[in-house]
């Protein structure tokens, strides 16, 4: 009834090729952006900004990066957290050592550093595939944090190897309140998501998907495998690197390379799998599921405990939360193996026919 495109005619190529071809989609995306940029800052408090919204956006960006590599180009990687660490440390060193460099420029250059490192670790993908490639990227995950700690220069010889992010200042304006940090992160993430959405529709993106679906066939029709795979690694690592810089500057404020460990790489991979492999929206849904659901479950369980005066042993709610979280992951993967994004797609198809399904 509300969601149908009857009567919307596309009369030009531009109209046919636009990002959101259906008017309702366009309005929904604009409304969502309006809520995110205007509504949320008016309504949310500091806890929501610092503990929920900023981490959600940062991990969405990292998941988006991995989704480009794994979902679109079909190369499995377990090094996302290491590339985030490269981005974070690169941004810190650029700000520290290059006087007068604008913050956003150092974020971009941090992404470029991560892209170079990512492309270097992507080289084995030219010869090996699948699980074996995952093992090769595992090397990045172990090597990079080790190197960042081992060489004192990276942390400016901090005795504990921890780096502390400098204040975020753009054109003389310091972003220090949680709401300002949120808006900065949101802007960066929205722009990069838009870029990703366009990239996967371009020649580059189609080449990635061709390689993913069958690399021999892709090679036969004239796609250069080397360039395609390495650009996928570079672009993916660029996104992870920027996510790492945002993690350091807008979220935690300090980075210990050992925090960006294999565990986090796995979490980012699970975000992609649960959200939807090969879907931009899925990266956001997956990040929301993995980062926010445990917090909601814990708040819910703590609330229930107080509400019903259950005198549980300390730590019980955390255990129950872990169990419930695990059960939900299994539940969703059984019901919809293609991820939350697929669920959203099904909902849209149903909505088109509603209320008169045939």
């Amino acid at each position, binding site marked *: 009834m509300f969601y149908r495109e009857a009567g919307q005619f596309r009369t030009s190529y531009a109209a046919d090729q636009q990002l959101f071809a259906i008017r309702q989609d366009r309005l929904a995306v604009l409304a969502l952006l309006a809520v995110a940029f205007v509504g949320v800052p008016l309504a949310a408090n500091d806890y929501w900004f610092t503990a929920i919204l900023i981490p959600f956006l940062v991990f969405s960006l990292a998941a988006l990066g991995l989704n480009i590599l794994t979902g679109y180009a079909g190369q499995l990687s377990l090094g996302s957290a290491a590339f985030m660490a490269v981005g974070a440390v690169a941004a810190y060193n650029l700000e520290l050592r290059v006087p007068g460099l604008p913050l956003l420029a150092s974020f971009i250059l941090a992404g470029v550093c991560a892209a170079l490192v990512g492309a270097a670790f992507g080289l084995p993908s030219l010869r090996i595939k699948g699980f074996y490639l995952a093992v090769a990227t595992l090397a990045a995950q172990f090597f990079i944090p080790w190197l960042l700690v081992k060489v004192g220069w990276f942390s400016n010889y901090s005795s*504990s190897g921890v780096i502390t992010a400098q204040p975020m200042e753009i054109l003389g304006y310091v972003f220090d309140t949680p709401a300002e940090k949120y808006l900065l992160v949101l802007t960066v993430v929205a722009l990069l998501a838009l870029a990703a959405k366009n990239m996967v529709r371009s020649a580059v993106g189609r080449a990635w998907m061709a390689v993913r679906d069958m690399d021999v066939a892709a090679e036969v029709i004239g796609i250069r495998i080397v360039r395609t795979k390495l650009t996928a690694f570079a672009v993916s690592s660029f996104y992870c690197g920027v996510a790492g810089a945002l993690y350091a500057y807008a979220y935690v404020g300090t980075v210990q390379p*050992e925090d960006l460990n294999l565990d986090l790489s796995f979490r980012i991979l699970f975000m992609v799998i649960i959200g939807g492999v090969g879907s931009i929206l899925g990266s956001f849904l997956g990040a929301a599921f993995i980062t926010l659901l445990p917090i909601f479950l814990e708040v819910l369980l703590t609330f229930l405990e107080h509400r019903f005066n259950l005198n549980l042993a300390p730590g019980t709610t955390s255990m129950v939360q872990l169990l419930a979280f695990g059960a939900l992951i299994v539940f969703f993967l059984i019901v919809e193996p293609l991820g939350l994004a697929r669920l959203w797609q099904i909902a849209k198809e149903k909505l088109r026919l509603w209320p008169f399904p045939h």
Partner: protein
Amino acid sequence: MRAWKLTPAAVIAAVLGAAAALPAAAQAPGTQFIGITGYRVGPYGANGAAFFSGFVDYLSLVNERDGGINGVKLSWEECETEYNNTKGVECYERLKTKAATGPTAIHPMSTGLTYSLIDKVAVDKIPLITFGYGRTDSVDGRVFPWLFPLVSNYWDCATGIVRFIAEREGGEAKLKGRKVVMLYHDSAYGKEPHPVLEAEAAKHGFELKLIPVPHPGNEQQSQWLQIRQFRPDWVILWGWGVMNATALSTAQKVGFPRDRMIGNWWSGSEVDTEAAGEAAASGYYAASLNLAGRDFQVVREVQKHVIDKGKSQTPAKLVGSVLWNRGLAAAMMTVEAVRKAQEKYGKKPLRGEQVRWGIENLEVDAKRLDRLGFGSMVPPIKVSCTDHSGSGLVRFQQWDGKKWKAVSDWMSGDRGMVQKMVQESAAKYAAEKGIKPACLAG
């Protein structure tokens, strides 16, 4: 089929809806709310459970026996961090909003989380008490007004261990030419004492080898192979969680004498030695901030007023253990700081900046310790703006196979050197961050 397809959507809607509709659990008004970022699950859960049980038991004792601090009852809430920094930051942000007066003072019980919170607490005006861990140069309260590494810090501990070794060897002159290995947890925590140990090695002329163990440390064959090749006279163990027990049992396997191993205070609890087994751990030394055992008045009172009345969920075997006692001591210092602050600001729930003044002017002398029932469990402390630790003493204990026994008196390491290095390091931090060192007024 259609209904089945819609279930996941319904589950999402139910969870999000329920979570969004929740009010923050309101704290009883008129109480001093204490926010606890604790951990009882995860790789370090056993250590955290012992410490935080002691912490909460002491708070219960103050409520049950004294009716609060000068009539102001305590309330608290524990948030599970799983020893994960990002979860810890989330917990901190959540606890901050739970009461009008804030969370009083935060005990992160994690050096990593301490680092993540340093900038945040200065903005939020919440003191951070790091009881025997954290950032060492935060002893200088002019640069770190919100951080309180109470009692002793890692550098005091490291120099104390060197002095203890010197005593066993028969004098500082005998240290020359000795070989010492430091086996450490490869994290901010494990790296913290490196500068001071290197300075000690240069000063006394012993050979120091630093060997890292990656988290979580349950596999140490290659490290102990290096140790065997190096043939050290002493091994300093700077571990945490499962790494400690593994180090002890691997030492037994390769035949390194345990009475030549000295742990720091996070490597010297029953959790570590009992997991390693009697044969593996007997003879092992550890520096300590507090004594173990049930033979203290305060432990008997907790037993009588809290545990026997069913107000505690602490497993009986934790009572009197090193980390449980440390939890008692940490809670006692928080409570005493609030009491001190009440002298100035009145007998009502106090905010973080008022409690900060209380900690900075905290003095718990031997007489007061006796009154509180702690006796010799912890050293007396006197905090000031220039010395946020207030003591710097350590004491050595040895595991006899059944329990920890004190083998030294309270002693200090090379305080002069530590203070000099603290000031240098704090000055460097202040310059990097553009901080003008100054004491905060109450």
